[in-house]
């Protein structure tokens, strides 16, 4: 029963976090969701049996089922690696930990602070002249970042929405971006 309640709570919290806009929160949601799945596995092995699962170490009826534990171990490793990858996706992209429109990614900020055009270029942020472009939303005013960026040219919102360019506005909802491509 306690496992069922724990699975329910974890899943509810995970679903709540999935609904958030920030990528990091979504990642945390997945951490909780995979815990829920692992607990389901434990329940599948019947938690009433808790003996050491070695042959000859006790009554067969008492011994725990080692198979679900092996499954969970595998699942944890996989979930962990994907979580790490998602965290990376949350920071190493063009703007942000995500869909919040005016945030700027840590990677870009670091590159801009160093005046490092190479790094910014790696993320597709440089113009042809080699300037770093900080992506901005249309409705954004008084954002400090363009001033701090050496030689930055903020793209025209209209012009930057043109497909095929390496810059794009982030204000449009994801849906529109998906459609635009």
């Amino acid at each position, binding site marked *: 029963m306690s496992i069922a309640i724990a699975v329910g709570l974890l899943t509810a919290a995970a679903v709540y976090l999935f609904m958030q806009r920030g990528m990091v929160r979504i990642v945390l949601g*997945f951490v909780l969701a995979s815990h829920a799945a692992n607990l389901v596995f434990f329940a599948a092995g019947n938690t009433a049996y808790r003996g050491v699962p070695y042959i000859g170490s006790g009554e067969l009826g008492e011994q725990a089922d080692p198979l679900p534990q092996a499954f969970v171990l595998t699942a944890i490793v996989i979930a962990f690696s994907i979580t790490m990858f998602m965290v990376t996706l949350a920071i190493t992209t063009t703007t942000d930990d995500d869909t919040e429109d005016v945030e700027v990614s840590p990677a870009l900020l670091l590159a801009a602070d160093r005046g490092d055009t190479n790094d910014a270029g790696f993320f597709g942020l440089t113009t042809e002249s080699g300037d770093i472009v900080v992506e901005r939303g249309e409705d954004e005013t008084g954002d400090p970042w363009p001033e701090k960026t050496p030689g930055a040219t903020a793209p025209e919102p209209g012009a930057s929405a043109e497909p095929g360019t390496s810059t794009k506005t982030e204000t449009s909802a994801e849906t529109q971006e998906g459609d635009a491509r």
Partner: protein
Amino acid sequence: MTEILPPLLPLAVGIPLLLAALGVALRKKRLARHMISLGTLAALFVFAVLLVIATGDGTVLVHQVGLWDYGVSIPFVVDALSALVLMIMSVLAIASVLFAMATHEARARFFHPFVLVLMAGVSGALMTGDIFNLFVFIEVMLLPSYGLLAMMGAKLGAHGARIYVSVNLLASTLLLVGIALVYATAGTVNLAELHGAGKDDPAVALAGGVVLTAVAIKAAVVPVHGWLTRTYAMTSPAVTALFSGIHTKVAIYVIYRIYSLLFDGDERFLWVALVITSATMLIGVLGAVGEKTTRSILVFHMISQIGYILIGVGLFTLLGLTAAIFYLLHHMIVKASLFLSTGAIEETYGTGEIDKLGGMLKREPLIAVTFMVAALSLAGLPPFSGFVAKFAIIQATLAESHYWVAAVAVVVSIFTLLSMLKIWTGVFMGSEPDDLQERALTYQQRMHGKRYLRVQAQAETPTLTIGPPTATTSAVLAGKQAVKVPFKLIFPAILLAAITLFFGLGAELLMGWSETAAENLLNPMDYVRAVSGA
């Protein structure tokens, strides 16, 4: 041969993994990486052909990994279906890798290793006889895919990669829960031992339903298809072609396998599959109507085609399964060919938007013919494999008196043809936009020139084609010569288009194999007997 092959089955997973590691180690040796990758894929293809020959008479090859006894071991099992799918997938992987080499994407240090790990996962997922192992291999397949998508999508932003990873992780978590429930209710995860469990016990059927739902998300079946159109159009054409032929199709394979073994083709749930597949066919094709780029149209069609392929599950008759398996194999080839031929235009002219292209028939006649062949095959016109596939599917639905499904299939074919005509008129016919050449030059410089510009100390003439500037480059720059799609970019699409023509004219051959595969699905006792050794 049936004695030599089974012990070699785990090698189809092990060798690509090992060579992927080698590929990572050879960081400065690009040529060696190309050779390793192509060589491994070619070897995998040859191995798959041998498996197809060995399983052609309905034999099921089994290897208990580690020679453990049945019940303890994790078996590798190959029947006609897995062998056929593996064969076609290795062809696709070769074509996509050739395309990626032509676009120079494959120069990235991790490209080839990722593809090899991906293929290792595919081999494993197709061969394993254990449902938890299946989950592991699907993850092995997905992890490098995340890498490929993020790597190639970097120029377009990471939204595609984020959606892709999130949706797939959610589906994987659901799959894991489903497998846990199957284990809890049936007490085993061995597919052979699970045979018929879903038919006899409603609790196992429910657990199997969770597994099937999770796999359906990965197969992009309506109503859980939204992620596909949002992600596949947001990476490079080579990666789209590779994924289109592999990921959703492995999921479809799993659906067939699980319904055949766990549910033993239970007739009570067939109507569910028919309703879902009809919706998938219709919604996919209608979604394509509103799209404006070649790739997004093709991705929507993919969803619609997935509906056709899954009709076989809804019928579960010999005719239906044969037709569906034929359709699956035909579709993987044709779709990849379409992605690669339009992708060649996209990679050269910098856009896949129909409005911004035109007059390609005159400019690129070879691509036009290749596209035409694959598009007509997709729509189901003779003499290509699509005609045989669609004809057989519709015949199978009529044989079971599901007239409305047949009607949907016919109507959807017409819409498919219309969509293909939309691409045809928009991209290949009509007049060439004035800024086509200029746009192509800008695009080439942006995509490929930067690196060389940097290396060559801001060379005076920015490089235009991929690679160091040549005499041709400056001629094009000076406006003396038109931008053209290089043959190496068209070749993979031609290869696949030729295969669809071959399977259209020689449908007998593929149909025979598909029928053997269908018989195996229909009588899973052969599978069970082979695995249990009884």
